[in-house]
């Protein structure tokens, strides 16, 4: 593999606008990937600031800083911004940058749609965040928007629903693009079972997105008509059913959980082999485990609603189905450890974040297994135990994987090595503080503290204080992250094409920084260049 395959065909592509217009009209997968990643970082800091308002209020018992109504707006907006604004766009950004390079394609299959699906997002989030300044305030009924509570709010609900529709359209277009790219743009020889796991996990995630985003759109549209047009889908007095909303919402919501974690699995599956200098263990099993998890994710939604009063048979079904997900998830963790086993490991920042992911995602997965046990869930449900669980999975799971991926590919994007020393400080600072932040929340939940409360009884004071201190430490660590990225974009030691000694795969055969156009002529792919090998063939 050489640079010859990546030569710029400037004759088709030299009419590039500059300045703002370059970014507004770009159809290049790398530039759009950058836009997504920058947008996601901004949203991560905005959502993080909201989390700090929450943690500041919860530092001590009594209300000190915000009134309960605003507190509820913060918990609601924090979740919406982090899920739809930070984590999902970050994965789409990584997909844009990496999928074409990983499969040897010249760009995404649908470049103009790619531009559009990004540029919807700033408008969607401007609308969402503008509700904070409306007379009726931002939504305050939790990100799940359960009726009847969500219907008590003012007109800002209509803006929230519009923004959710926009985010949904953006996600669906992004997903269609990913599927079209993976199925059509692969270089000759890049068979499906030679694709990097990041590509596989994204392919499966894209199908999940197309399946469930319309379900969310349907649910919130019914809220809209209930609130403004006199329908009563969810109003018992009019023959509706408030629990119906929860079923529809979580039919979207549980696959959404996997939309947020499957690409993370993909990133980790790329990083661990590189820094272990050993091919991924059980590649084919990893692909099947991912597909199994995705399929099962459609059958477990009601585990979020065990306390609504379902028939015994339904509760048993959802308990067993949820427990079964532990099996393919376990396969993944065992395969990652087997990849490390008898490798030749080094511990650069991406690997550190991947190992952090492995430990803390396992903790989140194990508490998830506990939550599946219905009688015990009658205690855990809606307590801080749940808050601890999903933050272990989403922050130390999804977010840590995204950071691992950013450190891993940053030299490829910028052509510079990031500051390794600062990267390591960022890792240790984040890892220690995030555990100080979330681990005590397990204790709070078990001791009986409900979630989404602005004030609490005296016996919960110590662990809340510890958690808040961890929260502020973790929050400020992310400013360091932003600085490290910025510094790396500006300069640094030049990166080689391969960047990492153990790196394999097409993306490492192009120069660093990757030129705007790569693989205009498809590379020839065989087992010697791919990161993984289907060991069954």
């Amino acid at each position, binding site marked *: 593999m050489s640079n010859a395959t990546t030569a710029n065909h400037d004759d088709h592509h030299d009419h590039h606008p500059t300045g703002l217009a370059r970014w507004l009209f770009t159809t290049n997968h790398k530039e759009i990937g950058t836009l997504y990643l920058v947008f996601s970082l901004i949203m991560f800091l905005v959502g993080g600031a909201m989390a700090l308002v929450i943690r500041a209020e919860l530092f001590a018992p009594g209300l000190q800083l915000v009134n309960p109504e605003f507190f509820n707006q913060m918990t609601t907006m924090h979740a919406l911004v982090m899920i739809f604004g930070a984590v999902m766009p970050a994965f789409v950004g990584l997909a844009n940058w990496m999928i074409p390079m990983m499969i040897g394609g010249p760009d995404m299959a649908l470049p103009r749609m790619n531009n559009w699906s990004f540029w919807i997002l700033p408008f969607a989030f401007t609308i969402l965040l503008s509700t904070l300044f409306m007379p009726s305030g931002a939504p305050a009924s939790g990100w799940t928007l359960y009726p009847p509570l969500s219907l008590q709010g003012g007109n800002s609900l209509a803006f929230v629903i519009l923004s959710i529709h926009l985010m949904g359209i953006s996600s669906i277009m992004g997903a269609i693009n990913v599927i079209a790219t993976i199925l059509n743009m692969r270089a000759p020889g890049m068979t499906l079972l030679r694709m990097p796991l990041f590509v596989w996990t994204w392919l499966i995630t894209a199908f999940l997105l197309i399946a469930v985003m319309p379900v969310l759109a349907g649910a919130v549209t019914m809220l809209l008509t209930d609130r403004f047009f006199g329908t009563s889908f969810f109003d018992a007095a009019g023959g509706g059913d408030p629990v119906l909303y929860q079923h529809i919402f979580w039919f979207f919501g549980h696959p959404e959980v996997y939309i947020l974690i499957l690409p993370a699995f993909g990133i980790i599956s790329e990083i661990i082999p590189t820094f272990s200098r050993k091919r991924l263990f059980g590649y084919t099993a990893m692909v099947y485990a991912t597909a199994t998890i995705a399929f099962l994710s459609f059958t477990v939604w009601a585990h979020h609603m065990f306390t609504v009063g379902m028939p015994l048979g339904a509760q048993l079904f959802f308990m067993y189905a949820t427990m079964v997900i532990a099996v393919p998830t376990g396969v993944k963790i065992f395969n990652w450890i087997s990849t490390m086993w008898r490798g030749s*490991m080094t511990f650069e920042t991406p690997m550190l974040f991947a190992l952090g992911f492995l430990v803390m995602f396992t903790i989140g997965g194990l508490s998830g297994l506990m939550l599946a046990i219905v009688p015990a869930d009658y205690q855990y449900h809606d307590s801080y135990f749940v808050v601890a669980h999903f933050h272990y999975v989403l922050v130390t799971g999804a977010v840590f994987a995204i950071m691992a991926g950013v450190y891993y590919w940053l030299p490829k994007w910028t052509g510079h090595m990031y500051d390794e020393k600062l990267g390591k400080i960022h890792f240790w600072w984040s890892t220690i503080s995030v555990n100080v932040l979330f681990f005590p929340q397990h*204790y709070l939940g078990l001791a009986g503290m409900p979630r989404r409360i602005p004030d609490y009884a005296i016996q919960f004071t110590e662990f809340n204080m510890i958690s808040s201190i961890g929260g502020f430490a973790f929050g400020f660590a992310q400013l360091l992250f932003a600085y490290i990225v910025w510094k790396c974009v500006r300069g640094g030691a030049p990166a080689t094409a391969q960047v990492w000694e153990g790196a394999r795969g097409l993306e490492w055969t192009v120069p660093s920084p990757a030129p705007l156009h790569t693989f205009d002529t498809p590379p020839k792919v065989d087992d010697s260049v791919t990161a993984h090998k289907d060991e069954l063939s």
Partner: protein
Amino acid sequence: MKRTNELIVALAVLAVVTVITWGLFAVGDNMPRGVTPFSKDVYHLHNTVLGIVTVIGILVFTAMFTSVVVHRKSKGYEPAKFTHSTKAEITWTTIPILILIVIAIPATSVLIDMEDTGGAEMNVKITGYQWLWKYDYIEDGISFYSALDRDSNRARQIGSGINPRDVDNYLLEVDNRLVLPTNTRIRFLLTADDVIHSWWVPELGWKRDAIPGMINEAWTYIEEEGVYRGQCAELCGKDHGFMPIVVEAVSPEEYRRWVEAQGGEVAMEPEEHPGFVGRDRASGSDEQPEESAETINIAVLEQG
């Protein structure tokens, strides 16, 4: 040589991981054991599952950190070439399935027990309002509202100048407690007037949603006299954090005396209640909560 090395490191890592885990258990709180047969079952189930996942976690982390310590490039470790092991993969698919079955069996039986709400000796209807609870003792004809007590309510206002630490049972005290007899099988019928609430007293072992337009059932059998405190667990608006629950469990004799002392008093409207914390929602609700409550009472009694 390398093999011993791995084993020794593994034992050392195991010791460290175990000590850290033990420390995490030692400093923290666990779920309360509770005072009902169900809460004790849940407590044991919780401890069993927690024990199992802890052992799994310790083993996973031991394998992982052993590898991190031993299989390093800086120690000149050459990477192995294997990428597959059918035997290992079958093992770590089968063993988790067996563990899950071991967990599922007690979980199923405890759940079946909870869902059987028959044989009740008395019925209490619980209605959630923004932001207080109403209790109707169906057989004894008693009915009252229960809201956050005045002291807590005063202290919780922004800038109240009152230190929450100076208030007894801050946020966990009500004006009218739910008095219940011990050693009696009590069935609860839960519903709500406005939005969804959730009734949770950890010492009883469960929470159950109170949903407008629906009636949920749950039951309890309190074995020990005492005062048990809980809170609304489902976000229900601005004062969701301020609608506590206090159960006072007394002996059946004492309970009868308490019933007589109530003298068949009828509940007032929530707005007239001195502990009422405010119903300033945008839409307001002008339907009569009493009306729907009565209909439900009749339906329940007909059911037996």
